[in-house]
Every structure is written in structure tokens, then in C-alpha cells.
């Protein structure tokens, strides 16, 4: 069968594109390698989730889909999906949008013009987006309304030009949030409740948040967390125009000629190979799998991959470095109310002295006890015996941590390539991840770490700990940048419409398009940009 539009990946970008295109009347085929994961499948396993994947995770992929990580010292390691070096995103209908915490930040106007504002540091590929905040603003509004965002409209409007209020009020301050709000006031900082893709009121026939506290990494028990799995994808299917096939792994994009995609070849769970044809093909497989698929679709005229005409495909891989400081208050401050995050500041996203960019800082989602034990215990506390047990009992109710995503300075050397010596269960070369964050990202993270410490100090912590981060590669669930948009084909993979340069009908709609990744959780921008791209495809008559 021939479809009008074929979309690879039912995550954030693909889910939105499916709804916009199906509602325009297009016949859409939406292929997802994962399953319809639901709360009923959720085991709430504290060791096997997308917050702590110690021995596995609650969605796919399985171990038949490894990757290879190249460390900065040149050593190579095969990574399974639950290993940290895999840089996994959930494999399911809705992808990570059904497991995330749902921080729903817009990027700031200056996040779209980083090179203009800061120049291009040596060794970096810092650049402006080909579009501006104003181009994306109408789509931010639509996503906030159509998926459902709870936020502080007045505070937001002071920083982001916006036409309408959020559809729901923000989550209430937790006890920690009230302490940090007072501290911010003493410091003269502006702090307010982060916008969240979580219902604070019944919305679109689904319930309000039950404050369970297991947001990040888990499915929502009352379906109050808003992703594409419970909004845009059901909308797409409800039109009768969208066929969703799960457990369908796309092997390659098929080309009719050098400039025209004709469809894809995919394999289903029973091992059967299929070919589907479409007039327009959209890849929304996230910033590691999207370039991998395009590379694995190489042809004689695109020998290193579709869209790799200028050796840009797979480069500029970025995510977010997270500085974190953890402090202990004299008295208990834990009230157990989920989602946990309730106050943040964007005062340091730009205009910092001698620092490029910056980032958002906020309190944290409720921390699993085992995550506290593994990641948050100060180094000098013994990991065994009465001292360890006593510290857990004393510190867990008293700790506050401040963290947040730092805007990374992209580098072309952080990249996705193919590893032809390691193949997945279908015999397809796997993604090979290499490179490391730019030194300016480390410097900005160190600066933001001082701000996190300042905030905790003002809150009255008795002590605090945590070192500024100095990671190798950064990607993770915020992965972005590997098919960057641009007006110049010499320095980009797609044009401003998300269409791959030189191919008339092949698009990308996911975080791969991000030229830079903001100092914020990127999902609202991925969702809004996918809406914009799909809207453009509709407007141009597909």
C-alpha cells in the first residue's frame, strides 16, 4: 500500500507529526519499534526503569540492539540498552514522553541565536538556528494547549513572549520549594514553578496528578502525565487516517532516485520483512537512531548516508550536562508530594559574566532511595555498617538538591557513526558514539554549579557536596543535534523545514534538528518543532 506520509518513530516528534498530518486528511503510516507500554505493564521496579537502569529498564530495546561507545581515551565498549554509555531513550509508543518528568520549558529567544550572541568558540560548531523564537512561538502555544501544560503564566510571560496563558495552574510548592523560594528572594533571584506536562486539574478527560512521586522513569498510574502516547497519537488514530504498527523496526529508507525517497523496508516481531511506500517520509527516531538509519540507507549516490552530502550527518551530538549540589537542612524537608520539582530559576540562562550561555536550575523530582544511596551520598560517608544506615535515615528526609540542564556548546567531534563490526539482531550496523563535550560546556557547568551552591547556602543547609561535572560524551534522553537544520547545505543536514537537503520528500522531525539544545529540557521544543514541520508539509500540499 502507498501512503501519503510514512513516519518512522512514534515518540515526541513522530507522534505530533502523525496527528497534524492525519488530521489534515493525509493517509499516514506510523511505524514504532516498541510496543504500547502502559501503566498496567509498569512494574515500578526501582532498579529497572529509565531513572536507574541498573539491570534493565521498563521498555525496550532489548540486548539485541547494542551500541558502541568510544571513550575519550580511545577505548571502545559495547553498550547494552541499560548501560549508561548507551544513551537510551525509551522504546515504546510515545517513547520517553510517557516516562519523563515532563518539564515543559520553551527555549529562550537567545537560545536560537547563540553564535550571534556569543561568537563561535574554537573547536566548537556553535551556530544560530535558521528559525527564530517567533517562528516557533505559535507552535509552543499549540503544544502547551493540546498536550496540556501546567505552569505559571505570569512568570513565563515576563521571559517568553506568549499569546495565551497555560491551560492549567502550576503544581503547588512542596516544602522544599517553599524553602527555596524564600532563599531565592533573599538572594534577589527570580524563582517560579517550572512548567510541567502534568495535569494539575482534570484535563482532556484525564485525571489530575495523584502526587505519587514516581514520575521520572515510570509510567503514570493515573494517566495525568501528558505525552504523545495519550494525546497526539490517539488523535491521529481517531481520524481513521493513521495506521500505527508497533514492533516494526525500520531497516532502511528506500530511494526511487537520488533525490526522491519512496518508502522504507521494515521488519516486524515475527521476522517478516515488509516494504511500505509513501509520497513523503519523516524520520523521528531520535538523535542517535535517526542518523544511524540515514547512514544505513546509503546509496551509490549517497555513499555515506542520506543527507550526508557535507559530512554533517551524525555530528554535533549533544544533550545536557547537569551540575548538581546536594545539601542537608537541619530539620526534615521531605513531604513526599510528587512530582517533587516545584521551583526553578532561569536567571542564569544568559548574561552570565565570562560564560557562554548558562542553564536553568531547579529542585529535583522525588529521588528514589536507592538513587540517593548510589549517587547522592557524600564520598566520605561509609557505604556499609551503622554509619551508612544512620546517614540514610538522617539525610533522606533532610536533603535538598539543586540541578539543571546546562546549554552545551556543540562540537563536530561528538558524533554518531556506524560500527560495522557490531550488528543488531537484524544484522544492521549499530550506532557508534564518540567524542566529548566542548571545554566551554564544562566551564559553563562549573559556573552553574556555583549558583546551585549559592542557592542551597541561602536556603540554610548545614553542609553541601557534589562536584561540578566533567563528562565525556553527552547525549542521554536529551540527545540532539545530529541532523542540524540550516539554510546552507554545506553546514547542515536539513533545511529550515526539516527537509533533507537535496531530497525532495525526506524529512526529519525530532531533536536531531536542534542546532543547539537550549539550557532547558528540550521536549517542548521537539514537540513544537515537529508541529511546525508537519504544518509546513501540510501547507505546501505535501
Amino acid at each position, binding site marked *: 500500500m502507498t501512503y501519503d506520509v510514512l513516519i518512522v518513530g512514534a515518540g515526541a516528534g513522530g507522534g505530533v507529526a502523525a496527528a497534524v498530518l492525519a488530521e489534515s486528511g493525509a493517509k499516514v503510516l506510523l511505524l514504532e519499534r516498541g510496543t504500547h507500554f502502559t501503566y498496567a505493564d509498569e*512494574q515500578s*521496579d526501582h*532498579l529497572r526503569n529509565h531513572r536507574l537502569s541498573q539491570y534493565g529498564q521498563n521498555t525496550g530495546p532489548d540486548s539485541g540492539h547494542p551500541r558502541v561507545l568510544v571513550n575519550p581515551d580511545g577505548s571502545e565498549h559495547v553498550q547494552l540498552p541499560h548501560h549508561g554509555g548507551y544513551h537510551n531513550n525509551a522504546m515504546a509508543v510515545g517513547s520517553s514522553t510517557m516516562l519523563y518528568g515532563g518539564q515543559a520549558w520553551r527555549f529562550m529567544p537567545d537560545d536560537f541565536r547563540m553564535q550571534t550572541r556569543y561568537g563561535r568558540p574554537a573547536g566548537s560548531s556553535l551556530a544560530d538556528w535558521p528559525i527564530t523564537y517567533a517562528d516557533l512561538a505559535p507552535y509552543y502555544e499549540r503544544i502547551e494547549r493540546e498536550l496540556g501544560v501546567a505552569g505559571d503564566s505570569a512568570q513565563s510571560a515576563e521571559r517568553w513572549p506568549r499569546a495565551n496563558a497555560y491551560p492549567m495552574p502550576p503544581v503547588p510548592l512542596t516544602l522544599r520549594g517553599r524553602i527555596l523560594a524564600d532563599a531565592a528572594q533573599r538572594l534577589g533571584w527570580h524563582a517560579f514553578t517550572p512548567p510541567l506536562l502534568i495535569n494539575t486539574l482534570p484535563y482532556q478527560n484525564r485525571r489530575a496528578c495523584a502526587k505519587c512521586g514516581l514520575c521520572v522513569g515510570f509510567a503514570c498510574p493515573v494517566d495525568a502525565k501528558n505525552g504523545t502516547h495519550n494525546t497526539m497519537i490517539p488523535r491521529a488514530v481517531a481520524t481513521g487516517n493513521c495506521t500505527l504498527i508497533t514492533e516494526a523496526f525500520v531497516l532502511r529508507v528506500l530511494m526511487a532516485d537520488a533525490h526522491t525517497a519512496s518508502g522504507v523496508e521494515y521488519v516486524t516481531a515475527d521476522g517478516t520483512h515488509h516494504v511500505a511506500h509513501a509520497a513523503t517520509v519523516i524520520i523521528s527516531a531520535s538523535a542517535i537512531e535517526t542518523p544511524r538509519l540515514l547512514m544505513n540507507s546509503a546509496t551509490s549516490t549517497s555513499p555515506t548516508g542520506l543527507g550526508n552530502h557535507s559530512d554533517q550527518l551524525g555530528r554535533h551530538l549533544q544533550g545536557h550536562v547537569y551540575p548538581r549540589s546536594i545539601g542537608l537542612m537541619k530539620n526534615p524537608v521531605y513531604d513526599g508530594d510528587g512530582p517533587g520539582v516545584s521551583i526553578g530559576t532561569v536567571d542564569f540562562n544568559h548574561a552570565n559574566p565570562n560564560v557562554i550561555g548558562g542553564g536553568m536550575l531547579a529542585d529535583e523530582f522525588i529521588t528514589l*532511595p*536507592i538513587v540517593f544511596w548510589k549517587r547522592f551520598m557524600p564520598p566520605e560517608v561509609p*557505604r*556499609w555498617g551503622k554509619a551508612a*544506615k544512620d546517614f540514610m535515615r538522617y539525610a*533522606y528526609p533532610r536533603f535538598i538538591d539543586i540541578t539543571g540542564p546546562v546549554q552545551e556548546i556543540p562540537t563536530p567531534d561528538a558524533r554518531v557513526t556506524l560500527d560495522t563490526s557490531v550488528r543488531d539482531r537484524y544484522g544492521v550496523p549499530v550506532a557508534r558514539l564518540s567524542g566529548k563535550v566542548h571545554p566551554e560546556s564544562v566551564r559553563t557547568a562549573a559556573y552553574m554549579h556555583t549558583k546551585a551552591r549559592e542557592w542551597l547556602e541561602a536556603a540554610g543547609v548545614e553542609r553541601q557536596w557534589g562536584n561540578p561535572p566533567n563528562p565525556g560524551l553527552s547525549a542521554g534522553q536529551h540527545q540532539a543535534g545530529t541532523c542540524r537544520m540550516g539554510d546552507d547545505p554545506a553546514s547542515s543536514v536539513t533545511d529550515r523545514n526539516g527537509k533533507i537537503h537535496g531530497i525532495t520528500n525526506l524529512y526529519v522531525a525530532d531533536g536531531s534538528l536542534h542546532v543547539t539544545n537550549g539550557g532547558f529540557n528540550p521536549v517542548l521544543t521537539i514537540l513544537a518543532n515537529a508541529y511546525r514541520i508537519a504544518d509546513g508539509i501540510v501547507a505546501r500540499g505535501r
Partner: protein
Amino acid sequence: MFDATQLATLRTLIERFIPTDDVPGGIAAGVDTYLIGFLQADGAGFVLRYSQTLTALDAEAQLRHGMVFSALSAVDADGLITAVWNNQTSAVWLCDAASTLALIAEHCAEGFYTDPRHGGNARGTSWHSIGFEERR
């Protein structure tokens, strides 16, 4: 998987890693049950290291105190663990002593501080003690 002596050593080690005070310790919470299950599944690759460690701990106890590890007083057991944790060993160790003890301590924490379903946090013992509540 382990012989009776090794099992006794493991249970003693668990209780020293997560000792009983006014809150139940590792054994009362079921960490031994958790670890056996873990070593038969995701932790199968660790069995040899565990076995070597349990044997070496007994050898250390024999050399230092003339008795098996499980017969040591809490003070002596803690002293021995502290020494081994700092790589002050006398017996033959077929694996790295300090890092293996740290690994086992982490596995014990994984049993004790995670969901009771796994068997190492019976009745939510650890969660009650720190104030964590899973409202699902």
C-alpha cells in the same frame, strides 16, 4: 551456589553491612533472600567473585582470630571488614578484596532500599525508616 560455611559467612556479612538497631537489619529485611535470587538471575556473573570472597573472608578470620567469619563478634567482624576494605589482607584473595566488598555492599543496598517485591526490603522496612513512601 554456596556451601553452608559460605552461606553463613554471607549472612554475617549482610548483617554487618546493614546491621540491626532499632530498625531491622539486612537479614530481618530479607537481603539474603534477595541476594540469592539476584545471583541466580541478573547477578549470575558475580557468583564466582562472591564465592572467592566468602572463602577468603573465612580465611582472614581464621588467620586473625582462629575462627570462621560467622563466629566473630560484631566488633571483630567490623574490624576485619574495615581492614579488607582498605586492602589490608593476609589471606589469599583470588579477586580484588576491597572492590569486591564494595560491590557486595552495593548489592545489599540494592536489596534493602528498593521495592519490597524484590525480597530485600520486607514490609518496606528501609522505606519506613527514611520516610519514603511509594504512593502508587
